């Protein structure tokens, strides 16, 4: 059977369609003229077109549709004329009856009655005669179509022997053995009988079912046979054609399902009728037998699918065991059972959802409704309950048998089936995890180990297997109860997949939703995600054993894979010196940090600390290059906890000084030491590029240690800061480029890294309050010395005058009633010297100072009530006016030694401002005389610069404005601008002094 070419086919089809149209028009004309025989002849003519061999199924279908419509017209006409005839006869009979009655003749009446019956019998044969008549048609296709159209029309009338006609039609259809023509013919039969099938009593119902099943079986045979038609090279084509035709076969099953649905049993006749058992005993075995017998791949997969889809779920529950073990196992070995399983499971899952939605409603109903109406429902519910409890068992049995019977089943199959099982188990037994464990155990033992040649694909399948429950579980912690989950996870050889799962877990844990189309069962919706804390080491192990792979993953590897994947988005950290990493990598690290924050034991901070340490020791330090991303979080978290503990400790000490707290103190100390080790570890690995960060960590730790009155610890930690500074920061060999672009003139613009570091340290140091004096001074001296040794003059100058503040505390920063050991020492050791002196000076400016402090210093300590008890304040603050002056002097010297006169001028002005601050603070050594001197110095400098050649340019710029400035040399212009700026600053400073003198009586004696 070779089909003509496509264009030829089109031409043929067009020819056929034209002819059909033509003939069917002729038929309609004949029908309108009441020329029935001629009409049938035309009908037969167009039906003849259906005998063609040369069209594809689609084209054939096109023809079929056209013919179907024409035949409907015929059927309607026949039915109408039949009805008209019947009515005519009725009327006649009535008239006769009336006549008989008027005649009052009993015998006549009897006769007329007889004649009624005889007429009745003669009335129906109109269609039955036609039914016989069309059977003279010489060709079988037109003959059968006409038989069906007339037979079904006949069935639609009341007096037809419906079942006989049905039987006859379906029997005669056997004559068409050609697959396509046969399929369409039987489809026509099925379509025409659709609404005519009798099922008013159980006998009729059974016969209807038989009819449908018979038609189904025959159609299926034809459908399967189509595959073997024609040349073997056209196999693919056949396959496609069959796919197009599948719906014809499936329609039978659909009808079957509808009939069962429509038939509600016949009340009195069979009380025990239940659709489920009927299906189980009468329909299921025959259909599945047929499906198995046909041994056809397409047919089996499609029909089982249809079977699953169209019959109600209760039916499947009832036949599940059979379906799986007797049917699925006997299907075509190459058939993908997983698809079927998947369909089935999906249905069950949907059903379950639906059912659970209903449960509440029906329960209410059950209570409300009368008992008599509920028998069925209750029965149904019971069966449902029993079924579902064994559901997984049945499925699992099947799977094991499948595995035994076909050990070479492809991995995809296993994976999909198991995935379905997981979904099933999760839906039906959300709390029972043993099922899942069974699955993972099986997979671990039998599947992964067997497939040594784990290709990427198979692994990806396993991956999906693992992902499903993660997404489903409301909490990641459910995984802890699945020991084989982890084993199975470990069997994955491809790290990328492990990572993917780990990421899933981490996302789940952090409540990051991943909307992936992979999973179609949505986990039970949690309205608001609540973070779960990891409180025990077991829990930490539970999570982190999956995260280990991510921890170990280093940047370079990550980069390689990213290159492979063609991801181009990368990030340069630390000016590219640290290598290039991807955004994804950073995201992962960020997630780690989030997880670290979730390691939390709210009521037991010590336990919490040990957990944090545990995480580091066991997991985080596995990859030393990545700790730079995770340790800061860890350290801060530890610090935070330590701070809490320490404060609690201090508070309790205050409350009950009698109790011995050495144990607590010891714990705090050890923890600080451990912390220091952690920071040190970080430092060891990352000092080259991240010492600034580490410095900050140390500083934080040191500050907190100080606040907790752990002096020695704090001292050591500050020492560590200096080490970091000396070892790495001082050289600033790798300083970020942008530091170099900053103008030395800009006092607020940062400066070099060492300068920054010094500022950092000094800012922290100035807040420490619990050093003894010796330690404190050693620290601040050291820092100031570092400052004075900076390379750049401006840095030197600025860090020195900043450090000056270290000798002059302005804030109390202590709980009320406490005294700083720094000052206490001061009192004991150098009581006579510094403090008395400072007290004297203080005395002199006392009034001014008190007011100034109240107004200018926002943070001025009102809690300590400076106005009422200034003495206490003096006692509390560490102040050394000589050192301050020394520092200022040093700064001046440095500024003076600057080569650049403009920069020098700028620095002078900055120092002047510092002096004003210290003057306000009440440092007696920075008096008006000193300040006057400084102002003079600045003025001289300005004058010197004015008299320079630049003067002209300067004037030019200031007078001529912007317009003329374009002529001026760039360099000149820049310097002039700087000079102008400096002068502006100076003028404003002087304005400020004047202003203060007028309004606040400050700066007495300063000549402006």
């Amino acid at each position: 059977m070779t089909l003509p070419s496509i264009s030829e086919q089109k031409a043929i089809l067009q020819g056929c369609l034209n002819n059909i149209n033509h003939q069917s028009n002729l038929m309609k004309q004949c029908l309108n003229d009441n020329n029935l025989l001629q009409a049938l002849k035309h009908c037969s003519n167009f039906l003849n077109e259906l005998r063609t061999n040369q069209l594809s199924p689609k084209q054939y279908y096109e023809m079929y549709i056209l013919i179907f419509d024409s035949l409907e017209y015929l059927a309607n006409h026949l039915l109408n004329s039949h009805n008209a005839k019947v009515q005519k006869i009725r009327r006649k009979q009535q008239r006769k009856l009336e006549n008989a009655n008027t005649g009052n003749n009993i015998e006549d009446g009897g006769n007329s009655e007889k004649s009624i019956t005889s007429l009745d019998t003669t009335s129906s044969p109109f269609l039955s005669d036609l039914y016989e008549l069309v059977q003279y048609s010489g060709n079988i296709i037109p003959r059968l179509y006409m038989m069906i159209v007339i037979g079904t029309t006949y069935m639609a009338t009341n007096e037809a022997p419906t079942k006989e006609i049905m039987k006859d039609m379906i029997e005669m259809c056997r004559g068409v053995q050609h697959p396509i023509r046969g399929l369409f013919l039987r489809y026509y039969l099925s379509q025409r009988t659709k609404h005519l099938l009798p099922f008013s009593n159980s006998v009729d119902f059974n016969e209807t079912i038989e009819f449908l099943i018979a038609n189904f079986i025959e159609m299926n045979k034809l459908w399967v046979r189509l595959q073997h038609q024609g040349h073997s090279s056209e196999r693919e084509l056949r396959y496609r054609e069959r796919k197009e035709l599948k719906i014809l076969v499936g329609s039978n099953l659909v009808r079957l399902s509808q009939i069962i649905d429509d038939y509600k049993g016949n009340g009195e006749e069979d009380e025990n009728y239940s659709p489920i058992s009927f299906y189980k005993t009468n329909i299921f075995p025959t259909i599945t037998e047929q499906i198995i017998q046909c041994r056809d791949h397409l047919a089996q997969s499609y029909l089982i699918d249809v079977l699953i889809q169209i019959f109600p779920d209760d039916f499947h529950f009832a036949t599940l065991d059979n379906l799986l073990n007797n049917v699925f196992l006997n299907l075509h070995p190459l058939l993908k059972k997983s698809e079927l399983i998947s369909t089935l499971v999906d249905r069950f899952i949907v059903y379950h959802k639906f059912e659970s939605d209903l449960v509440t409603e029906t329960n209410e109903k059950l209570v409300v409704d009368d008992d008599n109406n509920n028998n069925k429902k209750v029965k149904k519910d019971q069966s449902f309950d029993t079924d579902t409890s064994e559901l997984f068992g049945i499925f699992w049995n099947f799977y094991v048998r499948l595995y035994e019977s076909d050990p070479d089943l492809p991995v995809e199959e296993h994976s999909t089936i198991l995935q379905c099982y997981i979904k099933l188990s999760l839906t039906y037994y959300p709390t029972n995890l043993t099922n899942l464990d069974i699955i993972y155990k099986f997979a671990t033992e039998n599947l992964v180990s067997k497939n040594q040649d784990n290709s990427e694909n198979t692994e990806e399948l396993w991956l999906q297997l693992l992902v499903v429950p993660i997404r489903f579980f409301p909490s990641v912690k459910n995984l802890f109860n699945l020991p084989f989950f982890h084993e199975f996870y470990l069997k994955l050889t491809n790290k990328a997949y492990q990572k993917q799962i780990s990421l899933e877990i981490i996302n789940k844990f952090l409540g990051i939703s991943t909307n992936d189309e992979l999973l179609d069962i949505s986990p039970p919706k949690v309205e608001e995600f609540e973070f779960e804390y990891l409180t025990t080491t077991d829990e930490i192990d539970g999570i982190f054993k999956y995260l280990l792979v991510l921890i170990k993953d280093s940047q370079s590897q990550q980069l390689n894979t990213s290159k492979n994947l063609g991801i181009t988005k990368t990030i340069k950290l630390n000016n590219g010196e640290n290598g290039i990493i991807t955004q994804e990598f950073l995201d992962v690290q960020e997630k780690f940090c989030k997880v670290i924050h979730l390691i939390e034991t709210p009521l037991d901070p010590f336990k919490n600390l040990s957990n944090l340490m545990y995480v580091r020791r066991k997991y985080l330090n596995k990859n030393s290059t990545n700790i730079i991303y995770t340790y800061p979080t860890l350290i801060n978290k530890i610090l935070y906890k330590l701070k809490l503990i320490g404060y609690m400790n201090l508070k309790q000490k205050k409350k009950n000084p009698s109790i011995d707290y050495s144990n607590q103190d010891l714990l705090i100390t050890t923890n600080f030491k451990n912390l220091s080790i952690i920071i040190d570890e970080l430092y060891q690995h990352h000092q080259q590029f991240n010492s600034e960060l580490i410095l900050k960590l140390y500083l934080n730790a040191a500050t907190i240690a100080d606040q907790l009155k752990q002096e020695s610890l704090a001292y050591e930690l500050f020492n560590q800061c200096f080490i970091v500074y000396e070892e790495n920061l001082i050289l600033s060999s790798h300083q970020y480029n942008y530091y170099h672009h900053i103008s030395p003139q800009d006092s607020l613009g940062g400066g070099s890294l060492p300068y920054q570091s010094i500022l950092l340290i000094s800012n922290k140091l100035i807040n420490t309050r619990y050093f003894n004096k010796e330690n404190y001074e050693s620290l601040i001296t050291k820092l100031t010395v570092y400052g004075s040794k900076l390379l750049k003059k401006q840095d030197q100058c600025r860090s020195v005058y900043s450090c000056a503040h270290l000798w002059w505390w302005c804030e109390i920063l202590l709980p009320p009633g406490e005294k700083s050991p720094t000052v206490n020492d001061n009192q004991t050791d150098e009581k006579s010297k510094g403090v008395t002196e400072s007290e004297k000076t203080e005395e002199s400016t006392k009034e001014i100072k008190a007011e100034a402090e109240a107004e200018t210093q926002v943070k001025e300590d009102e809690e300590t009530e400076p106005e009422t008890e200034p003495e206490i304040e003096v006692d509390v603050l560490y102040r050394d006016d000589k050192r301050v002056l020394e520092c200022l002097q040093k700064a001046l010297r440095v500024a003076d030694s600057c080569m650049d006169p403009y920069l020098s001028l700028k620095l002078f002005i900055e120092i002047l401002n510092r002096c004003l601050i210290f003057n306000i603070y009440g440092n007696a050594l920075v008096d008006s005389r000193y300040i006057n001197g400084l102002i003079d110095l600045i003025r001289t400098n300005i004058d010197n610069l004015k008299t320079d050649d630049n003067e002209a340019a300067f004037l030019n710029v200031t007078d001529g404005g912007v317009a003329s400035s374009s002529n001026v040399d760039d360099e000149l212009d820049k310097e002039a601008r700087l000079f102008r700026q400096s002068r502006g600053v100076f003028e404003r400073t002087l304005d400020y002094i004047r202003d203060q003198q007028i309004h606040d009586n400050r700066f007495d004696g300063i000549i402006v």
Partner: protein
Amino acid sequence: MSIFFKAPLDIDIRLDNEDSRKHVEVKTPHGRMEKLPIYKDGESVKGQVTIRTKEGRKIEHLGVKVQLFGSIETNIDGLITSEFLSMATELASPSILTHPETYPFEFKNVEKQYESYRGKNARLRYYLKVVVSRKSSSEITREKELWVFQYITPPSTPNATSTTTNVISNKAHTHHHNTRGADSNSNSSPPATPSKEGHQTVKMDVGIEDCLHIEFEYSKSRFSLKDVIIGRIYFLLVRLKIKHMELSLIRRETVGSAPNQITDSETVVRFEIMDGAPVKGETIPIRLFLGGYDLTPTYRDVNKKFSTRTYLSLVLIDEDARRYFKQSEIILYRDQ
């Protein structure tokens, strides 16, 4: 009858109840359709003959008679007519006709042994012939053909006991038995009684070795002309690529006897019963209504002159348009 001269008399034969009598349409040898009244065996043939002179002429004749003939015409090396029935009645003695004259006639209870038949090389006809004998010229004749149906009550019905039917059915049976024995060897048990035999299922195993093996089965071997052939084909082995399958009914007319016999076959019915290729195990139903076709009952050696038989032929056509067929005779009879 002369071609040049018109007959001076009009002879008109009218049969009783001719309008209400059933007629049959048959084809004349010239291809036109002809309507003929139907008579049964043993039925009287009754009517009137009217003779009119033309244009008021006086016609002298030597007598008028009406004859009823049954004759068989065969055509082997020329037309041969033999009469198996001949009856005559004198209607008028010699006289002179001046005005129209009507003569009633009746042949009572005429035995009409055979059915009328028009085949290719054989004709069996019954006709009335009115002859007006004349002195001078040849006699003037007028013929009217009758059509005779030989009704046979189905043998199964117990009250079917007319002698003639028995004779014919017996004849038919013996002959049939022979042919069938030659056709198929499957049905070995010879029927006990003719009546039973006619209703026994006919079953045949037919096949080509290693290519095709089918069972051909139909309900019986004797059919009335209004009957239905019901049966089935069961495919035991199919290695041919069958395209379709049809049944045909073939009428075979045999004229003459052994050495110079002429046989003519004509396919009367062609009926497709299967479309497409079946597979092993498939059963194809057969149902063929005979009533609508122009079939002839089976006649065997009618007056030792000719026979007509009907064969049921099963034809399978394969994809290369090769035809495989199997023929077997069926006995047809006419029933009421």
